[in-house]
């Protein structure tokens, strides 16, 4: 893939890539101008639909279709930009906003125009301090240049873009949680239906799109849907940002079509460049932790929207891979993942609120050498009893908790059992009897 | 002093006083022994708290009877309610009047018989006894009626029926003796069992003895025939509402009745004060010491019967009422009728005191009874035949 020319990341590394001038000099805002001046909203939607742009936030829902759900005779539409990138170990949105904020803003203008939104809220997680300032500065610049605000580029289209900072809640990355959070409430995901496209922020039709999804829009408009479809496979078209991190030689965010395999992502010269100290890969969370885990033997998995399902994963997710080498104790990984979901569960649905926490308690007990063999079955069963897939929860967070934990217990059961067998005899009973 | 005693009237008077005291004492101690014997039979100790060996228990009981609140419930028939226990007790006591306690007595040793050791010696002594005995039921019936309590009333009715049923075989059994002796005076009946060629009637008529014994249980309301006070179904029976002294009277009456009955059967069948071959117990021994000896012997025989009464009570369970009736009407009555007829026949044949004849007859009757019971009485007859038959499936039989 060495010959792949980055599109989304084309400005990364260019001096002053954050500034409007540089962005414009490199061809920016042409698409936005084209859209607001020459195209109707439906044209834009059709183009995006034709390109088959699937949401990059994790669920992979086609963006054009999502826009099509908006009710016909609506008075107002609101656009929410999901920049609440909290999934470990995902950071591609950060890279986009940090290095090329105007690309995102241009995407917002196009999406806003297509959905006839007058206001766009960029919901950005609070830990993105620098990125917030970069983004806000870029927005200010865009306002000054007439790219935002009233009558954009003289087209008569108005769009206000506000950055709304989150405050440290993973679940606000869920679209309805994000909406609730903007409304100034706790970030409880809403029950669906009604979907946000019908009744979202402030009970108005609302579109929620990921930063990366929006960053793709200028290129689709500029180069056409056919170009977009020419990259990758028909169902997984277009450029995609991949993150790779952990004990690899060159962790980072890379752009590639969705035809690469996980192995290439880790080992490829253009990507991770292999493991540190050449240690074997034990496990990879190829799509962010919530999508599940593959073992070192399953690295041939393709990083597209479909193939991960064949490996017991929930989906492609954010395509951010964290690699675990064989020096790592799988129990620590299990505990870390379990802790993340236990602490980030919003607490609305019983199964998720209690189940994630229960899993964490079991996982940390196992890590401390006080596990029991039956705990493995238990943690797997608990993990199997939550999530949106069996209909047991409002949002997808518990699904995200299910897949990595079930994956770890299933795929590394032998190792876990070995640890339990080798732990200090009687410790589990001792710990449990102290607890109760 | 002695002269006064020579007068039968004064002798009887003094005897009455002595007897009354002694019998009351005996009655009281009967209760004590009843409890003791029942305890022994059940491997217990019995009363042992009041006095040595619990001997003062009757006194304590008596004191209690006297001192307890005497309740007369509302709506009872007051006069009868009060009267009934006295009838029951009084009637039982006056039965002693005709018992021949010690034959005839020569008080001063002058060879002339002065008095009879008997309160009264009427010619119809036996009839007196029978009559008085039947009166005993009066107390029960009146008590049960006066209680104004349905259980007591049931008891009264039961008693009546029971008494009615058992007096007939009893009368017939006595008839056997009377027809054999040919006299109703009790002293004569005793004497008829003594002397050459005479034996105790129990030897002569064992069947009649047994029947009289059984009917006596019924007459005295003792287990297994104490249906008039069946606690299970009638609370306390005829004395449900009685308490304190009146209850005590019923209680004492029952024991007095037992003593009378025992004396009665002793006189009729066991030779009264006589023991064969024992000097001092023969008709010729008329000294005052012989009289006392005779009295003791008769008393001992009575005590023996009392023991038998108690023994049976603590052995046998109570009859069901239909069983009680069946026993009387279908068992005792036919047998006693045959006995009476046979005894009459013997007298007619002049073989009234002939032992082989008498025993032979008894043996024949026993044979008939056994044959009837064992061989003939296989069919269910009468109303019982109309009962629906219970069919048992073959596979359920195991």
């Amino acid at each position, binding site marked *: 893939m060495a010959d792949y020319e980055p599109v989304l990341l084309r400005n990364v590394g260019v001096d002053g890539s954050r500034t409007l001038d540089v962005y414009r000099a490199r061809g920016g805002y042409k698409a936005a101008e084209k859209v607001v001046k020459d195209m109707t909203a439906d044209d834009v939607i059709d183009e995006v639909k034709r390109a088959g742009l699937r949401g990059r936030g994790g669920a992979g829902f086609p963006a054009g279709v999502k826009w099509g759900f908006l009710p016909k005779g609506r008075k107002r539409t609101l656009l929410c930009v999901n920049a609440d990138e909290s999934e470990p170990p995902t950071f591609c949105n950060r890279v986009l906003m940090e290095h090329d904020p105007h690309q995102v803003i241009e995407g917002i203008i196009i999406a806003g125009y297509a959905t006839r939104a007058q206001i766009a809220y960029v919901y950005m997680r609070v830990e993105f301090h620098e990125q917030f300032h970069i983004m806000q500065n870029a927005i200010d610049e865009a306002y000054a240049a007439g790219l935002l605000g009233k009558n954009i580029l003289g087209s008569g289209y108005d769009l206000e873009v506000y950055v709304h900072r989150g405050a440290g809640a993973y679940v606000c990355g869920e679209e309805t949680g994000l909406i609730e959070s903007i409304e100034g409430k706790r970030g409880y995901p809403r029950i669906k239906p009604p979907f946000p496209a019908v009744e979202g922020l402030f009970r108005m039709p609302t579109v929620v799109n990921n930063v990366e999804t929006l960053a793709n829009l200028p290129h689709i408009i500029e180069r056409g849907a056919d170009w977009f479809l020419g990259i990758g496979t028909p169902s997984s078209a277009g450029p995609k940002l991949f993150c790779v991190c952990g004990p690899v030689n060159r962790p980072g965010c890379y752009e590639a079509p969705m035809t690469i395999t996980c192995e290439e992502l880790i080992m490829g010269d253009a990507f991770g460049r292999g493991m540190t100290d050449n240690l074997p890969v034990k496990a990879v969370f190829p799509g962010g932790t919530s999508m599940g885990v593959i073992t070192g033997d399953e690295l041939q998995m393709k990083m597209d929207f479909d193939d991960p399902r064949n490996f017991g994963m929930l989906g492609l997710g954010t395509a951010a891979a964290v690699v675990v080498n064989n020096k790592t104790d799988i129990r620590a990984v299990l505990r870390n993942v379990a802790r993340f979901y236990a*602490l980030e*569960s919003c607490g609305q649905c019983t199964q998720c*609120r209690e*189940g*994630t926490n*229960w899993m964490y308690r079991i996982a940390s*007990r196992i890590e401390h050498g006080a596990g029991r063999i039956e705990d493995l079955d*238990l943690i797997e069963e*608990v993990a199997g009893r939550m999530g949106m897939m069996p*209909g047991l929860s409002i949002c997808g967070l518990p699904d995200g908790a299910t897949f990595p934990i079930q994956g770890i217990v299933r795929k590394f059961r032998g190792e876990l059992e070995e640890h339990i067998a080798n732990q200090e005899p009687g410790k589990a009973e001792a710990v449990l009897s102290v607890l109760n | 002093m002695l002269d006064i005693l020579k007068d039968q009237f004064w002798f009887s008077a003094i005897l009455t006083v002595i007897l009354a005291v002694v019998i009351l004492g005996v009655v009281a101690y009967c209760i004590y022994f009843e409890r003791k014997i029942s305890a022994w039979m059940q491997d217990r100790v019995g009363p042992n708290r009041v006095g040595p060996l619990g001997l003062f228990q009757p006194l304590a009981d008596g004191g209690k009877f006297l001192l307890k609140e005497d309740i007369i419930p509302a709506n009872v028939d007051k006069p009868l309610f009060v009267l009934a226990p006295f009838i029951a007790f009084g009637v039982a006591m006056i039965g002693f009047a005709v018992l021949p306690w010690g034959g005839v007595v020569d008080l001063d040793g002058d060879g002339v018989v002065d008095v009879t050791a008997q309160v009264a010696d009427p010619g119809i002594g036996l009839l007196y006894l029978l009559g008085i005995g039947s009166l005993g039921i009066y107390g029960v019936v009146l008590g049960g009626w006066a209680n104004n309590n349905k259980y007591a009333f049931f008891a009264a009715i039961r008693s009546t029926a029971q008494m009615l049923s058992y007096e007939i075989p009893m009368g017939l059994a006595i008839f056997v003796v009377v027809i054999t002796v040919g006299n109703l005076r009790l002293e004569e009946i005793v004497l008829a069992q003594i002397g050459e060629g005479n034996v105790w009637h129990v030897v002569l008529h064992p069947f009649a003895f047994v029947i009289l014994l059984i009917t006596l249980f019924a007459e005295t309301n003792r287990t297994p025939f104490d249906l008039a006070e069946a606690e299970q179904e009638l609370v306390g029976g005829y004395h449900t509402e009685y308490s304190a002294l009146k209850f005590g009277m019923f209680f004492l009456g029952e024991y007095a009745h037992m003593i009378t009955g025992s004396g009665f059967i002793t006189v009729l069948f066991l030779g009264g004060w006589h023991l064969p071959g024992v000097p001092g117990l023969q008709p010729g021994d008329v000294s005052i010491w012989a009289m006392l000896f005779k009295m003791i012997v008769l008393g001992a025989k009575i005590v023996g019967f009392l023991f038998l009464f108690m023994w049976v009570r603590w052995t046998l369970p109570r009859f069901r009422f239909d069983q009680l009736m069946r026993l009387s009407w279908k068992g005792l009555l036919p047998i006693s009728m045959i006995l009476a007829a046979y005894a009459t026949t013997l007298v007619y044949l002049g073989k009234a005191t002939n032992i082989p004849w008498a025993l032979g007859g008894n043996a024949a009757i026993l044979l008939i009874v056994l044959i009837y019971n064992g061989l003939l009485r296989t069919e269910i007859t009468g109303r019982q035949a109309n009962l629906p038959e219970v069919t048992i499936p073959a596979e359920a039989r195991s």
Partner: protein
Amino acid sequence: MAKITIDHRVIECSDGIPVLQAALDAGWDIPHYCYHPGLTVVASCRLCLMEMQLPHPKTGEMGWVPKLLPSCQTPVRDGMVVRFDSDLVRDNQKSCMEYFLIDHPLDCPVCDQAGECHLQDYSYKFGSAASRMADQKHTNPKKDIGPKTLLYSDRCVLCTRCVRFTEEVSGTHELCSVNRGSRQEIDVFPGMPLDNPIQGNVVDVCPVGSLLDKDFLFKQRVWFLDGTPSICPGCSAGCAIRVDQNEDVVYRLKPRFNPGVNDWWMCDEGRFGYKYVHDAKRIAAPVLRRGADATTPDWEAIPEIVSYRFAQHVAKHGDDKIAVVLSPMMACEEAWLLVKFIRGVAPSATIATGFVPTSGEAQHFPVGCKPDEAKFTILPEKCPNRRGVELITERAGGNTCDFDAFVKQAVGGAYSGAWIVGGYPDEWVPKDLTKATKHLKLLVMQDMFENTLTEAAAIVLPACAWVERDGSFMNHTGKIQPFERAVRVPQGARRDGQYLFEIAGHGGLYSGERVREMMAEEMSEFSEVGDAPPKPVHQH
């Protein structure tokens, strides 16, 4: 009406109600915590999930949805097929119940909710016998969140009904949930305790023993209590309530579902306003005064004494000098019996309606809403039956007047004989009326507590509290609602209805229903009152 099929049984239900509600109405015991018909749906307890057939988004054909759907949130559609009796559903219930109990302290023995706790009931019915949770339980603190309410947060299942209640019904927003995930708790803002006039309902909506009433705390175990349907006499709203008593002691009042009147709620004033029932100072026996000496006559003699005294009075002073004051605390039946009696002995006697205690303004909830949008209202008229006695007075015809007019005339000496009914829990006698007693040669006073009038009365008859009587009240909208007797009268007293029944010349035992039948002959309003109270649409 929509027809839906639940477990092969077809039921009819109104359009658009949740499937859960339809199933509950049809008699299924569907476990649920967060759903309450009076509150918004949050679908967060995930216990009521069912399998459903929904139209396919593309083809429109009905087909089983592969996942479970929350029945509280899915509205019924005609022809819908729902499966409750399925392994998938049961499996979820079982695991869900296990999750609920993960951090639950299992302190049922000391929990006042035990016995009416849905955590207990559902665990028993839908849960598993043992918990596999072996790790340390997380314990949340107990909080004193208000003057009348305690919050045991470790028993909480976070259904947030209470929070929604304060947001949506009371509109006072005291309660909130704090923190998130498994550390979430219900709390109030410190210094702003849960203290609104209808806060007691949060205890009722709480399906577990988390919110508890300080008034009832540790007093009784609920399984000892017997509930009697009744009507709250606290104001003229006529809220349907349940009187919970054990051995003739009232321990608490609970609201009963009464659509259109109080729905599921009741106010604290009514809830805790029953205490006077067990006041030791209550008049418990009739008193007869002749000059200075007072006697207590037998109840059997009362009808004769009263009739005789009135007849004598009429003979002496004429029948237009007699007045009767019907208290709005009386039941309609009692008022009617009294009117019948008076009109019998003195046809032109004046019938006056009694003193109507009022306090403040009507309070509408949610706080700050318009009166016609109110979900719950506390009325200023602190008596249950003003409209009832007014109706009876009006139908009685002849001389009638209102209370103020009566007082004026009585002070002026217009009456020489009067029967005044009180029965108010508080001090009520106006000063003027006390002055009027000097004109009253025959005063029959029927009241609960001693006051200046009972001191002056020739005959004092004890009035009973409403829990001791039965009858019906007419609320401010004119709805006649029957209530039943919950406890027996104090020793020595007798039910008002009973002695009025006898005084009015009837034999036998008084019963509200029997008198209503008699009343219905002349007042059609009372012909269909005797219906049973409406079936509770929602059990908890």
